[in-house]
């Protein structure tokens, strides 16, 4: 975290406390009622959707959200005391989930009210079922499914069939497309 000097913290006093330095892709959709707090950088990739009442907390470190990812209402991403959070592409963070992980791989779904602890590393195409937990500093392999009170298994269908992954990506792109027509974009609020 300290090895690379962050580009922003030289002049933090110029920015209002409520508005972190945001780099939002022009095609990202940020709902009017989404909350972005903290003083660290926030990067949101192309076609990402941030739903109303989603919270992005760049209080303890950067928050990066990849392209075609979705953050649903009431989900919290970011840490309050140290640590960047990097979310990959095609990721779904569902309602009420709390993600404080170092990174979440591409194609992963964090379901309703699931918790991914601080310092965890979640691989690609993982699924964390509703109300499940990934403990702090835990590393989750690619294609892992966390379900049924902490049990784990490998999702062989997604692992062995590239076409399944392609279809999932396509589905996500269509979901983003649907959201584009339904959620008014208020990204300008955070960039200006």
């Amino acid at each position, binding site marked *: 975290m300290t090895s690379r000097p962050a580009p922003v913290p030289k002049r933090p006093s110029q920015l209002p406390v409520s508005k972190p330095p945001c780099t939002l892709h022009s095609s990202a959709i940020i709902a009017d009622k989404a909350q972005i707090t903290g003083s660290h950088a926030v990067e949101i990739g192309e076609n990402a959707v941030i739903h109303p009442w989603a919270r992005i907390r760049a209080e303890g470190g950067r928050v990066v959200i990849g392209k075609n990812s979705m953050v649903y209402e009431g989900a919290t991403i970011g840490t309050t005391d140290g640590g960047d959070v990097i979310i990959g592409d095609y990721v779904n963070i569902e309602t009420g989930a709390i993600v404080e992980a170092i990174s979440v791989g591409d194609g992963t779904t964090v379901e309703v009210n699931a918790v991914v602890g601080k310092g965890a590393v979640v691989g690609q195409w993982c699924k964390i079922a509703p109300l499940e937990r990934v403990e702090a500093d835990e590393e989750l392999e690619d294609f892992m499914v966390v379900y049924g009170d902490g049990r784990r298994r490998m999702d062989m269908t997604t692992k062995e069939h590239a076409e399944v992954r392609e279809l999932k990506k396509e589905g996500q792109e269509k979901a983003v497309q649907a959201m584009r027509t*339904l959620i008014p974009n208020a990204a300008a609020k955070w960039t200006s």
Partner: protein
Amino acid sequence: MSRPPVVTRRSAKSEYIETDTGNKISRRARIEGKQNIMLAGKSVVMAGATLRGDLHRKGDKSSEGEKGGPITAINIGRASVISTDCTIRPPMRLSRGQMTFYPLRIGDNVFIGPGTHVSALSISSHVHVGANCVLSPFCVIKESCKVLPDTVVPSHMVIPPGSIVAGRPARVVGEVGEGWGQGVGGEGEEWVEGGDLRPLVRSIK
């Protein structure tokens, strides 16, 4: 369910806004797309509840009979209670090459416990859902069911009438049996789970 006593009947700002049909909506409820939400009457939406009425079926005028009128995304019946910090979001799936939201229906006298996430296709009447449950997309809950707290109902699951379900993932663990929703007539008992919730709705101020 202890509530702070009402000191003055007409305080400057009451917790609930009451509509003409007797619905009580908390001022602290988080509602998007209210033009797409139908409340039949005498229903309660408590503080912190999130209703995503903005996620409705778009376009598709040929199959939808309505012309220009608002399309309901969330339909809630009479005397139903949506507790604090619930989320009601219509389910979404791929249909004819497009992601489409399907209207979410909740029947009469349904109780949704605090912190529960509802993305079901329909919940029939006299259903009692406990606290912190997750009703995944497209699940269907039929009449007079009881969902115990902390249950995760998987997507597309259909729960037959009169079942008790629990667990992660949810399984049918029993039946509600005779007398579901009928009070035993005990002292001070005004409403029971699965019964007529109007006394409960009346007591919420």
